[in-house]
């Protein structure tokens, strides 16, 4: 059994194509059921679909990788009604442990557009739960997904890959949270009714601030912007000081050529506030707020360059954490690989148990003949006792060999042991043994990397 991944992501395809192959839109469950019914590449029906705005990936357990690949691509084309030729150049595929590594890296946020973004782990969990609901998640995929959840969790707790805001809006919100704690109940004043101010205000609104007030030189313009934000109110330019006095966060984004908020003006606004902090975010160029205003006690002034510097710093910090995250991926991949290898010897274990069981059964049958002279009650009792004892005996005899076989880490040794057992116990007639398939689950490492 092989693990195959076929997908399209932000690394290989433009947004126009990603939009067209969005499984969320057409229904993940429908896709899962349709695919399961197709039995692509000798699939036993183990399929999962990971669909986000940046990627559409299919994970499949199959026997014939090459055949399954082309079947999956044609399925994607038919399901989304997109020409195969339009999809093919953007599709990537990897099998077995490399497929597992890919999913682990995705769950860790290492493959995301913004490295370390936290939403992806939730989306991966969703992909698994959809597969479970559609009954397309079997032992292989269940194990694979649980292993990738462990990777995601470890990367989140053991590294700083996801820490620090990496966009200007998030940096502003993160700073506001560090000053005010919870943003619920806080009020925001936006100076200027332009696009930048509106976007930042919308972001603040989505973080649960109580009130957003738009102040603009033209009240009609302010009212229009307030309406598009939803739940915001407009205020006149003359009422700016009153609005500022009530605000916790001020976003300035006007097109004015000279500063609107001078130090003296901010000082007069601060006086009646009795030490209540004021966070001013100046995203206008040229600046709307005099730099000296930041010297006032309890005033925190950040301009667009300050926020961008913080974003750059956070991105650099994340980049330095990538190596630690990759190490976690490697560690978990090793664990997953040994689980897979232990699955490789399972046919031998099964054959061995079947062989022992058939010997036991035939001896029990012979015993029946010998017991036939006993009265029925005594015969039943004697047979039950012997059945129980022989069953326990077989279980105990097989316990250690089974554990030893499953515990073999090296695929060559596993194959060798399996062959020896097959020969010693004459399992050749019985079904399969540990085969060379074990080999495919040896972790591949990039050249030059030490184990």
């Amino acid at each position: 059994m092989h693990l195959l991944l076929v997908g399209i992501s932000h690394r290989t395809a433009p947004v126009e194509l990603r939009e067209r192959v969005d499984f969320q839109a057409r229904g993940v469950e429908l896709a899962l059921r349709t695919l399961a019914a197709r039995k692509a590449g000798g699939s036993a029906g183990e399929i999962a679909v990971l669909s986000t705005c940046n990627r559409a990936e299919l994970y499949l357990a199959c026997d014939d990788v090459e055949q399954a690949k082309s079947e999956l691509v044609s399925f994607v084309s038919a399901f989304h009604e997109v020409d195969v030729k339009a999809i093919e150049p953007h599709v990537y595929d990897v099998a077995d442990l490399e497929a597992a590594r890919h999913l682990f890296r995705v769950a860790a946020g290492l493959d995301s557009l913004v490295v370390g973004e936290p939403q992806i782990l939730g989306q991966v969990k969703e992909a698994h739960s959809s597969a479970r609901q559609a009954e397309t998640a079997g032992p292989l995929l269940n194990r694979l997904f649980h292993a990738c959840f462990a990777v995601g969790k470890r990367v989140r707790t053991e590294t700083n890959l996801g820490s620090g805001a990496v966009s200007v809006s998030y940096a502003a919100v993160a700073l506001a949270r560090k000053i005010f704690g919870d943003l619920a109940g806080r009020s925001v004043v936006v100076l200027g009714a332009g696009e930048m101010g509106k976007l930042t205000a919308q972001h603040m609104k989505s973080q649960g601030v109580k009130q957003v007030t738009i102040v603009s030189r033209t009240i009609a313009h302010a009212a229009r912007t307030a309406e598009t934000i939803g739940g915001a109110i407009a205020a006149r330019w003359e009422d700016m000081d009153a609005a500022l006095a009530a605000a916790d966060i001020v976003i300035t984004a006007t097109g004015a050529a000279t500063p609107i908020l001078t130090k003296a003006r901010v000082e007069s606004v601060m006086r009646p506030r009795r030490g209540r902090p004021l966070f001013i975010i100046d995203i206008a160029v040229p600046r709307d707020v005099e730099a000296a205003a930041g010297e006032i006690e309890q005033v925190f002034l950040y301009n667009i360059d300050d926020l961008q510097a913080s974003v750059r710093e956070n991105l650099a910090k994340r980049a330095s954490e990538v190596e630690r995250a990759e190490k976690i991926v490697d560690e978990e991949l090793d664990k997953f690989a040994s689980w897979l290898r232990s699955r490789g010897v399972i046919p031998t274990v099964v054959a061995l148990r079947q062989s022992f069981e058939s010997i036991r059964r035939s001896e029990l049958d012979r015993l029946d003949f010998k017991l036939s002279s006993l009265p029925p009650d005594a015969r039943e009792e004697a047979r039950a006792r012997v059945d129980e004892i022989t069953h326990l005996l077989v279980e105990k005899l097989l316990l250690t060999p089974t554990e030893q076989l499953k515990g073999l880490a090296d695929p060559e040794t596993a194959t060798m042991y399996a062959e020896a057992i097959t020969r010693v116990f004459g399992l050749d007639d019985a079904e399969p043994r540990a085969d060379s398939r074990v080999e495919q689950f040896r972790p591949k490492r990039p050249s030059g990397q030490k184990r």
Partner: protein
Amino acid sequence: MNIVPLALYAAAFVGYALHFARRTVVSARLATTMLAAATLAHTFIIGMQTMQVGQVPVFDMKSAISMFVWLLAVAYLYTEVTTDERAMGVFILPLVIALQLIPAFKAGSGAHSAVLRGPLFGIHVSSLMFAYASFALACVIGITYVLLFKEIKTKHLGVFYARLPSLQVLDQMNQRAIIVGWVFLTIGLVAGVAFAIQAHVPSMLSLEDPKIFVALISWLVYSFELFAARRIGWAGRRAAYLSALGFAIVLLNFVPISYLTNSHKF
């Protein structure tokens, strides 16, 4: 006996320092477990002493400091468990360890005056101990507030920005600790006066006694802090500085005055 909790407090400090640096779940658990173990061991020792003497052991400096350290550890543990904020541990534990060194390595007088008994004396001492433990917490919270404030104000977002709770939360915690401390300081002082009157020892009420004088100064500082935060907007950084100043005065009363002068000994 006091060495056991000292060693455990030191181990807890290592745990908190590790947690501050790495912020892993394991280090968080390790730190809290060590501190809980230290506090438990300390509780056991204080309990034993209480049974031995028949009253809360606060009759000499050694036992009083041990009691204070225990209260501080309990107060901090309570704050940690209720807020799930561990970043402050690395600041609190050095204070705990430094103070615990005194009962751990200094021989106590053992003897205590027969005058120093009764419920009023108990209220006087235990209220003051509790007040001082609250002020110690407020001081540490105040220091962390100033550290975070400086990072945000100067736009150098670093270690404290990544680890400490928000300024608002720190300010609230500081204010709460000051209110609790102030209430118990007031109760402790009033109980002290009532006890002195009841015991008919006028020297106990003398302002020339440095301990009483410094206690009154600290009461004035904390009263001003509470007033200033409400009336003139001295919240945030100024309140944090006042908390640190107030506790410096309290500490002055606790260690140098107790050991270098003969004040307040009856």
